[in-house]
């Protein structure tokens, strides 16, 4: 009996040590928006290098920032860049900064349900801001009608729908609205949750879509990927160059290309209302948050290896999942930045 127990203990220790030797578990947490592509990437990378196992919890950007700051995960992920206070809080706690690495691009699109309208609607920035501020209340308001000549818009009340849960989608949407509307920037500002002047809240993309589908004469906003995968009709938005652009992989990439030239060294850049004739104005990067110093050499090499792979081979997986690729300039800049992780 005693010998058996001893044997068992020995076997267990052996198994544990083998497991520990072979499997390096790297924990991350954060944004939900890039979760489909991240889980694909981590899966593919694990196939390539079976020793490395990434574990990513899509708990939301805010929670991702909090957890990486607390040091409970190895890396974070966010849809909106960390603000200066958050960066300072990280620096104060750890003694070294945290770095942003853009991974893919996404976009937010206006979706609507006007039973008497069958063609795709055009939205000017003024119309979107007016509707979400509660200033434009009827579908046949001149601000909407002027951009949709020939469309028979009804004189019904507009029912505004927004996200009720905090989300990167809301961050991108409100970031755009605060850039194009003085009043929005003064009254509401941007954030993952804001104090909405009007409207109903739906939980998640599916909640917003459900409300819009069920409520005649409503308007809402969802992620491009969600709209594309569920065949939800959405409108075009007038960009900074004055053209009406419908969101797709090309127009989103073009928004990023416009911003790539002026990309700051810390990659914290907003690409809403980007210049460029074909640029879709409500686009955004999404970022991985990597600590500048990683003391565990194995983890450091794995994370750096993954980042390099993500920028090269990894980008080829993006389009099948409806994410837009990073522009070349950004990829080159990031490759250089990876060496900054020590």
């Amino acid at each position, binding site marked *: 009996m005693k010998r058996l127990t001893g044997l068992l203990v020995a076997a267990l220790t052996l198994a544990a040590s083998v497991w520990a030797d072979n499997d390096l578990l790297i924990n991350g947490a954060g944004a939900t928006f890039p979760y489909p592509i991240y889980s694909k990437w981590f899966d593919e990378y694990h196939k390539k290098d079976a020793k490395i196992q990434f574990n990513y919890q899509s*708990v*939301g*950007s*805010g*929670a991702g*920032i*909090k957890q990486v700051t607390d040091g409970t995960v190895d890396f974070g992920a966010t849809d909106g860049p960390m603000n200066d206070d*958050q960066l300072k809080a990280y620096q104060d706690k750890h003694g070294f900064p945290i770095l942003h690495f853009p991974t893919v691009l996404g976009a937010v699109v206006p979706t609507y349900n006007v039973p008497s309208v069958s063609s795709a609607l055009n939205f000017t920035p003024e119309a979107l801001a007016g509707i979400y501020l509660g200033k434009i209340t009827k579908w046949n308001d001149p601000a909407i009608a002027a951009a949709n000549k020939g469309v028979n818009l009804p004189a019904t*009340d507009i*029912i505004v729908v927004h996200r*009720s*849960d*905090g*989300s990167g989608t809301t961050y991108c949407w409100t970031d755009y609205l605060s850039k194009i509307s003085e009043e929005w920037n003064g009254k*509401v*500002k*941007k*954030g*993952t*949750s*804001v*104090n*909405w002047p009007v*409207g*109903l*809240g*739906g*939980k998640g993309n599916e*909640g917003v879509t*459900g*409300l819009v589908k*069920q*409520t005649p004469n409503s308007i809402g906003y969802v992620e491009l990927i969600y709209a594309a995968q569920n065949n939800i009709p959405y409108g075009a938005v007038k960009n900074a160059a004055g053209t009406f652009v419908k969101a797709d992989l090309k127009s989103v990439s073009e928004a990023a290309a416009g911003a790539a030239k002026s990309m700051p060294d810390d990659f914290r850049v907003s690409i809403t209302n980007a210049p460029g004739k074909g640029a879709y104005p409500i686009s955004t990067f999404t970022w991985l948050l990597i600590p500048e110093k990683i003391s565990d050499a194995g983890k450091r090499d794995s994370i750096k290896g993954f980042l390099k792979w993500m920028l090269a081979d990894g980008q080829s997986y993006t389009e099948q999942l409806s994410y837009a690729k990073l522009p070349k300039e950004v990829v080159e800049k990031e490759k250089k930045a990876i060496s900054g992780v020590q």
Partner: protein
Amino acid sequence: MVTTSTTYGSTGPAARSRSFLSKLRDGDEIARLVTFLFAMSVVLITVLLVYQLWVNSALPRHKFGLHFFATEVWDPIADEYGALPFIYGTLVTSAVALLLAVPLGIGAAIFLAELAPPRISDALQFFIDLLAAVPSVIYGLLGAFIVVPLMRTVIYPALNKPLGFMPIFKGPSYGVGFFTAGIVLAIMVIPYIISVSREVLLSVPRDQREAALALGATRWESTWKVVVPFAKTGIMGSIFLALARALGETMAVTMVIGNTPKIAASLFAPGYSIAAVIANEFTEATGDLYLQSLIALGLVLFILTFVINGLARLLIVVTTQKGSGVTR
């Protein structure tokens, strides 16, 4: 002298420990101790819960004070938080739910316990138990896909046309709102009311019924005037169990209430509840004050439940004292 004292001193504890041991062998002491610890764990959990909520909501408590309960603003960007719209929404939806569920639930329980043949009663009880076990997100889905459109196209016109002059039935309907949330909550809590009330009614002694019938009462008179008053305390208990569930319900409510932190007199207006806002915003609450305000809302919900339960106990005490002569 010395010897006596030593013998005395040594036999005393030995005798006591022997009796303790024999008790142990009987299992009495162990059972007592173990069950006592289990019972105390309830107190411990409650105390720890309140302590954690209290400690982690220090920031808003110091910054807003009692003002927290009186402001209608919920602005994560400006870092200003007030609990009032959420408290209002929680109370209103729960009140609507009880108004709808209590008559229905108790009526059904009376039928099942007093009037229905036992076989039908047992069969229906099976369905009720099934309903009570359905996860709340399923009720939320049904609410969002069935009650919400029904609200907009059928219930709202039916109530708004004849009763629209009253503030609570005024204004437009989006389908989602206080009333819709109340209906979904009512559907969710009815099984609890029926199930517990039925058990309570069934446990009323046979003598009570027979005595009433012997005095010449009809079946309904004996049920309504004797059996129901006898079971009043238990029925109250079932209502408060239902209320507790309605106050804390999260998923189903957030799917149908509209998630708008505003106070409106109309039941058709969209609103928000405490549990719903916590579930919606907790993951993305980045600032300390923001996060702690949400935890403070949790504390408010706890206090609300505590106060309502306290009032419920009081109500039971008062009504049983001057009530139907039933003593406990």
